[in-house]
């Protein structure tokens, strides 16, 4: 068989025809995502033999995984760093700047208080602030990776953003809890 000109051994950026960088064109990502799924989605092969159906499911799964990874700035950066051979040490490296940890503590208390008091307005405020600060960190991350190529600093920012993501999950859970 001819070696195919394209294969799924390629990394996620290549899969979507995007330059390997922290800042990407999200409109292009989405457009390519739809174009790829239009080809590989299992709905396109239900009338074909089992072998093609199995292949389609695996490919559609991979395209979904790649899309979800590139769509989220945090996951995208983590993935990009892994391509550069950088371990973000999110599970092992727990040394964080003291002021950052203090701030995290305050955040958590505020979320838990708002949850206890069933105060949706307070949650919305916290959420807006969290989003702002997350965007700032993401912007810094893009600079560290794309412009400065300072991957050690970038890994530190990824670890911070992981904290922010957990906070966002807690806020989400608090909304659901209030609404029960």
């Amino acid at each position, binding site marked *: *068989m*001819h070696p195919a000109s394209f294969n799924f051994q390629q990394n996620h950026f290549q899969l979507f025809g995007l330059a390997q960088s922290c800042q990407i064109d999200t409109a292009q990502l989405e457009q390519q995502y739809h174009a790829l799924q239009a080809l590989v989605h299992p709905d396109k092969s*239900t*009338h*074909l*033999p089992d072998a093609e159906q199995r292949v389609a499911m695996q490919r559609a799964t991979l395209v979904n995984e790649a899309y*979800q990874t590139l769509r989220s700035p945090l996951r995208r950066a983590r993935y990009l760093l892994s391509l550069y051979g950088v371990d973000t040490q999110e599970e092992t490296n727990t040394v964080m700047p003291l002021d950052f940890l203090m701030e995290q503590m305050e955040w958590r208390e505020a979320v838990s208080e708002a949850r206890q008091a069933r105060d949706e307005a307070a949650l919305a405020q916290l959420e807006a602030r969290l989003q702002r600060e997350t965007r700032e960190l993401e912007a810094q991350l893009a600079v560290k990776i794309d412009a400065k190529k300072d991957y050690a600093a970038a890994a530190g920012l990824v670890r911070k953003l992981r904290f922010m993501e957990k906070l966002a999950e807690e806020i989400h859970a608090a*909304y659901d809890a209030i*609404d029960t």
Partner: protein
Amino acid sequence: MALLQISEPGLSTLPHQHRLAVGIDLGTTNSLVATVRNGISVVLNDENGRAMLPSVVRYLADGGVVVGEAAQAMQSEDAANTIVSVKRFMGRGLKDVGEISRSPYRFADAPGSEQGSGMLQLRTVAGVKSPVEVSAEILKVLRSRAEAALGGELVGAVITVPAYFDDAQRQATKDAARLAGLNVLRLLNEPTAAAIAYGLDNAAEGIYAVYDLGGGTFDISILRLSRGVFEVLAANGDSALGGDDFDQRIHCWLLERNRLSALGPQDTRRLLTHARAAKEQLTEHAEAHITAVLSNGEVIDNVLTRDEFQAMSQNLVEHTLQPLRRALRDAKLGVADIKGVVMVGGATRMPQVQHAVEEFFGQTPLTNLDPDKVVALGAAIQANLLAGNRGGDDWLLLDVIPLSLGIETMGGLAEKIIPRNSTIPTARAQEFTTYKDGQTAMSIHVVQGERELVNDCRSLAKFELRGIPPMVAGAARIRVTFQVDADGLLNVSAREMSSGIEAAVAVKPSYGLADAEITRMLQESTQHAQNDMQARAMREQQTEAEQLLEAVQHALELDGDLLNQAERTQIETQMGMLRNTLQQADHLAIKRAATALNDATVGFAQARMNKGVALVLTGKNIAELGVK
């Protein structure tokens, strides 16, 4: 009649022969079947011109089965043997069914399960029946209706399920279709089916909410429609809330009003029937008269006003708003982002439901499609596409898994593996290790739901991994892959990484049926028609083999250049062997040859897909590729 289907000489229908496919809305209260005829989706009526088949199955002492209106007519008289709303029992255990005492049925535990676990069963005069068997009876009637109307055997069917159905409920639905002899092309979420019917009909673009309140289930789905892509952003709901619950409220009110207690199954069913009639009357009228005679001769005579009904059902309506808020939050959207709200399900006819939805979204919901039929119509359109009948326009459907999948960890906690609203198909791999020297087996408990404690989630299955090579504790690395397919169904596989040994996965479904049970049911239901089955299997194998040959031939013509001579010869040899077996009356031989051809084309299939993908990226139009 099939004899009348003559094609003009020279006008071969291949390879675009129309394949018969249907969409089936297997509803709590009513079921429908639809198909695409001449490019238009239509609901197929029964011989009396009725579209809706009441989802009621009555079992007779002589083993006979009555489905639909005739069964419904006997639901009070023979309440214990006449199963209504069986959808509520699909993939559910006894402990899930509240107020058993008020139910007219005699329940039984699943065979071989501990008390209260496993899918419940119903004792009838014709023996113990699983909800899967009861649902299969409904599907069989719809299948015959479709085959009679279309004049041939179906290639397959799309069966709709509530978006918020969990894995056990989905699997039970698929098993029921299998039992009814249907090839399931896809399990499709009901609100998504409605969105397809609505979206294609109105060339809709933007973000839409589908509010689907059926007889026994409630779904809310948020979708983005853009340039032929239907993308579900979030789904939520309550798989045990529907029009039935509104009937129950009226029923309770009647009991209270008339100081009745502990009614028998007959009277319970009779009052529920009157309650439902009153509910429907209150859609158009300000009050409903309820008169009934109980079996002891007592006369019930009450007037229920719309205001009273609204007051007693207010919290049911409010209960639907919570999933709505959650779905919006999950989609990271606000009410203002929603361009239109599509109403689906007969229960959305109730004025209080329409008002609540209108108030929530700040816009009048769209009701220009028949809420009873829109799901079946959408399913038929999807079935037509999946069967390979390509029309001019093509679209893509991206759906999600509604509930998170997780596994049990230390302390009875559920660790999420695949979060809710992940686009399917999706997969996640997780590594586990042994905690004892020489350990060769381990057990994994898979649950579904959003709660932190395993006991608050739904138990899907316990997986026993066996055949792990003995090593010191912590040395084995067992990689378990959780794959959710496009039907939203979970499959699990496991492999020991350091040795590469595939660990055997034995599944004990918590609420599903083991394969052996399905086989037994299939045998039972066909023992009277053994010969028919043989002939049918033969025909099916022949048809499948012919389709396979046709597909491979088509692929060779289009993309034969992807193969070298040896590869091409191998495929052609397998094709020749399959053609030879078609002359024999041995369906197993055909199946073997078809499998061999299938296996021989795996590499070719991959190369074709790669080619397609590469072309997309180089800017070619997908339609030019001829990828089927």
